[in-house]
């Protein structure tokens, strides 16, 4: 005898419920182990070329992975005794913080300055202590603006802003240190404004917002869905049942994720909202149950018939959704992979519940309650059902006009998609008013730029970089780069050599050049290394003088900026050939690589999803023709949305590109429901395949399963609309995208499928009868 999960669940409902509760509790025990990962570097695996190379560069040049930047701004200028006293005081306190790489903190009191005073060469901290007289302040002003190495780095051109660069030891807790720095600056009175920026701060803020999304926005989304379901079905038990199913699936999935040791990342933090929305697919079961119950007034029979009728579409929609997400497992971006696996698992769990937990819960619902609620559920009486029938009728009666309109809109949308601009700007993920954006903007305006890229210039020969031609080449490249609008400040070993040359010659501007011989360069650098901090030289040149590291501070986090820098370097090299190679590195370069991975992933993901979804449609309908028809509203929806994204000029970033793949798997649900139910209806009806019979079956589908589709779309949209109020822009974009996609694809399904079926009915329905019967027979056999 064939085992039927539905039968078992109806017969032993209590067992099913308790088993689910027990398993859910088991998954729940994993939750306390939760940890987040907000490091953008982890978007790519640690074995990826760019990360291996960046680590190598960090090691060669003794660079730190994380640096907090503390900006100090005073509208009256920072060069006065009071402000300088505070800066000295703050720096001292920062130096004493555990986890801070104190030896390499760079601010007024610690940064190396090279000067000549009364014939004596001085290499040492710029301002060892706070100035006590105004004359000392003026001397400091002279030192700052007389040294191009310091301007735009620790002092803005207008003298109103300075910065303290605080590198962190490996493994230090950036959030904790940033908080302590917050407390340190908060304790100072005075007119100064303080900005605390840098990667670790951004990451921490990000992590906090992620928890907010999961802890506050997900439950709100749940509440909204609960209210929406309650309004639709007016039965508390049913609403609770649906929410319980969603909650259980979320707990199972997140529990598995956490239990398996994966950290929660930007993508997986959206999982609860996604699963909640996907759970709404079971609305089709409730929808059908109400209609059936009204016809039969026998609860158990209604459950069995409902499950028979919807089992096939529900199973295939689940398959399609799971497959859409599983496609993400082939992506290069780690959090996207994890997210794909997570949602695929959650979808499978949800479908398991559709055939066990939901029928089991339906048996508990009191008959009179259902009768009461179901009273309104009839195609004839229902307002929304009539509206849907009306929309369907436009399709069936004016198929050609509808199709032509579609073609025109698609053409416009395609024009829009060509305007799509791929860009990931991590700082722009925060809202304009957020502390981190404000700090970043202020620092970018005042100083050399917060986004850091490196150009590693390598030779095959040791000591090569000491050659005057190599030094001059570096200098020329810097001047070239500094002419670009996106570049704020550049910085290399050549700057030190020039500075020493000038200072040794009594600060004569004539000597602000690279000296003539390699020995001179070598001796200058040796002299510098005798007095400076070891890191000063290590940061810009390797110990064998074979590789030089050119620092490029960018004024924007846009990935494109680094591409321009790389291009400019290539052009420069062509114009000035030298036996060196130039390789980009640093966080700005990482962002560029990652950005391109997003594009590659999107193309790959979209093609894979298109193939997989087509295969599933063909399998579900046992027909390639029907699969093609089902494809149309789906493609149309996505094209329209992409067109809008293109026209509005919004950055197409990682979350959106991931969605483009997912949306296929989710939006296809409606087509599956519509086509399956229509063909069932047509096969059951007596009118054969006459035009009238087809039209009537289409209109029935538009109004009855169509109502399920509409409810599903509305619930989906309701859940995701919460994300429009989220604090991070990717969440907002995702929310808007999904809301638009669900509503649009529901509408397009109900409008375009009738039109297309009418237009192509001879082609579509002119197939051997057994196929249609097989579909019907198959669905009854379950």
């Amino acid at each position, binding site marked *: 005898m064939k085992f039927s999960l539905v039968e078992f669940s109806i017969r032993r409902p209590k067992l099913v419920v308790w088993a689910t509760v027990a398993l859910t509790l088991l998954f729940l025990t994993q939750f306390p182990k939760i940890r987040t990962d907000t490091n953008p570097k982890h978007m790519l695996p640690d074995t990826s070329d760019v990360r291996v190379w960046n680590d190598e560069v960090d090691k060669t040049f003794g660079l730190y992975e994380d640096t907090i930047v503390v900006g100090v701004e005073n509208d009256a200028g920072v060069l006065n005794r009071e402000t300088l006293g505070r800066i000295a005081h703050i720096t001292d306190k920062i130096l004493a913080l555990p986890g801070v790489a104190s030896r390499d903190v760079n601010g007024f009191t610690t940064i190396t300055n090279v000067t000549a005073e009364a014939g004596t060469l001085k290499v040492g901290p710029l301002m060892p202590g706070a100035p006590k007289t105004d004359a000392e302040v003026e001397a400091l002003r002279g030192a700052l603006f007389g040294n191009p190495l310091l301007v735009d780095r620790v002092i803005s051109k207008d003298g109103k802003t300075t910065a303290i660069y605080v590198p962190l030891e490996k493994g230090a807790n950036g959030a904790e240190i940033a908080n302590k720095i917050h407390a340190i600056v908060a304790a100072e009175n005075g007119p100064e404004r303080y900005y605390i920026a840098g990667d670790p701060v951004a990451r921490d803020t990000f992590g906090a917002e992620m928890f907010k999304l999961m802890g506050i926005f997900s439950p709100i989304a749940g509440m909204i869905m609960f209210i929406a379901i309650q309004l639709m079905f007016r039965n508390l038990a049913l609403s609770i049942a649906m929410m319980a199913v969603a909650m259980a699936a979320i707990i199972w999935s997140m529990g598995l994720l956490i239990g398996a040791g994966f950290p929660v990342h930007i993508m997986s933090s959206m999982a609860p909202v996604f699963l909640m929305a996907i759970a709404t697919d079971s609305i089709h079961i409730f929808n059908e149950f109400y209609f059936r119950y009204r016809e039969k007034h026998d609860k158990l029979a209604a459950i069995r018939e409902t499950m028979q009728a919807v089992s096939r579409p529900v199973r295939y929609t689940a398959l399609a959704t799971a497959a859409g997400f599983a496609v993400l497992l082939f992506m290069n971006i780690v959090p996207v992979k994890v997210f794909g696996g997570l949602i695929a698992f959650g979808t499978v769990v949800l479908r398991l519940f559709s055939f066990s937990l939901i029928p089991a819960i339906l048996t508990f619902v009191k008959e009179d309650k259902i009768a009461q609620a179901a009273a309104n559920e009839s195609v004839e009486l229902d307002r929304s059902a009539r509206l849907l029938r009306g929309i369907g009728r436009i399709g069936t009666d004016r198929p050609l006009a509808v199709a032509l309109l579609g073609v025109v809109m698609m053409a416009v949308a395609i024009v829009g998609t060509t305007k799509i601009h791929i860009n990931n700007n991590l700082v722009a993920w925060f809202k304009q008013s957020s502390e981190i954006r404000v700090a970043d903007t202020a620092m970018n305006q005042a100083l050399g730029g917060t986004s850091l890229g490196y150009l590693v210039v390598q030779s095959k020969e040791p000591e090569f970089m000491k050659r005057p031609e190599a030094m001059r080449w570096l200098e020329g490249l810097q001047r070239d780069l500094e002419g670009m609008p996106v570049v704020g400040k550049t910085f290399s070993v050549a700057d030190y050599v020039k500075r020493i040359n000038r200072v040794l010659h009594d600060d004569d501007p004539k000597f602000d050049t690279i000296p003539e011989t390699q020995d001179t360069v070598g*001796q200058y650098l*040796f002299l510098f290394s*005798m007095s400076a901090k*070891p890191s000063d030289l290590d940061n810009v040149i390797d110990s064998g003088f074979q590789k030089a590291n050119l620092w490029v501070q960018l004024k924007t986090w846009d990935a494109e900026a680094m591409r321009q820098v790389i291009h400019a370097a290539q052009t420069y090299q062509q114009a000035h050939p030298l036996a060196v190679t130039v390789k980009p590195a640093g966080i700005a370069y990482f962002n560029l690589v990652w950005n391109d991975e997003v594009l590659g992933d999107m193309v790959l993901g979209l093609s894979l999803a298109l193939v997989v979804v087509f295969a599933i449609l063909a399998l579900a309908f046992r027909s390639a023709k029907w699969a093609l028809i089902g494809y149309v509203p789906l493609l149309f929806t996505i094209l329209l949305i992409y067109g809008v994204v293109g026209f509005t000029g919004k950055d197409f970033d990682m979350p959106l590109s991931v969605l483009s793949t997912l949306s296929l798997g989710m939006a296809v649900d409606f087509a599956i429901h519509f086509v399956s139910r229509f063909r069932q209806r047509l096969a059951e009806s007596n009118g054969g395949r006459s035009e009238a019979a087809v039209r009537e079956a289409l209109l029935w589908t538009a109004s009855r399963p169509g109502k399920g589709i509409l409810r599903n779309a509305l619930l989906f949209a309701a859940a995701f609309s919460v994300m429009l109020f989220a604090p991070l822009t990717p969440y907002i974009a995702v929310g808007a995208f999904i809301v638009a996609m669900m509503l649009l694809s529901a509408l397009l399904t109900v409008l375009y499928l009738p039109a297309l079926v009418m237009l192509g009915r001879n082609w579509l329905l002119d197939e051997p009868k057994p196929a249609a019967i097989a579909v019907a027979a198959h669905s009854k056999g379950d």
Partner: protein
Amino acid sequence: MKRWWIWIIAGLLPLQAFALTGEEVMKKSQAAFLYPGTDFKARVVMKLINKGGQERVRELTMLRKNMGEAGGEQKYFMYFFRPADVKDMSFMTYKYPAKDDDRWLFIPAINMVKRIAAQDKRSSFVGSDFTYEDVSGRDLEDDNHVIEREGKVGNRDCYVVKSTPKGTDADFGYKLTWVDTSTFLPLKEEQFDKKGAPYKVFTADEVADVQGIPTVVKRSMKNLQTGHRTEVAYLNTGYNLGIEDSLFSERFLRQPLRKWVE
């Protein structure tokens, strides 16, 4: 068992060593380590080794002349051989107790002698893990010295002295020095940063008898926080050679006498 008090005294015997104070131990150590002989010459080979094992070599001749008692004024002369492009560079220091040093550098490529400000004794000596202070000593009065305990380095008995800076100018929070109880040479030194974390470790890796004077001829300094280390070997060491005072002048900085620097 009436003579129980004898056992107590016997038990206290090692404490006799503590007859010296921390200050006295460090003073004797300074004299043994930095001031032996009236003058001193060595060919110094320094290997600067980074975390990845890459080596850079510095080679120089170091001359030292005491101008008075141990703890008093000294003059240093350094003539560089390697790296190749700094050959003929020379560096001279007049070291004064309780006062900033005077330093001069000769830059042969531009034939220039330049005075160099010595405002920061904490800075690295020619890019090594030794600071100027590590090389030529730190004023004893800058720190409080306390004998923490007795210890051993290898089979040598040592005083373990804790030195804590009185001011804030040091680059360490405190340091522990293992001073040999018989030669008074520092055999090991552990520096801790201002947060109390291990910072740098000095070890005297080989002590040789040079003209009857125990001399550290191999030493190393490792920065525990960066993984960078410096190994130093003293070759051709000699004491009491009669180095003239006139050698320590700008003239000889430009044109050092071969017999002293080779």
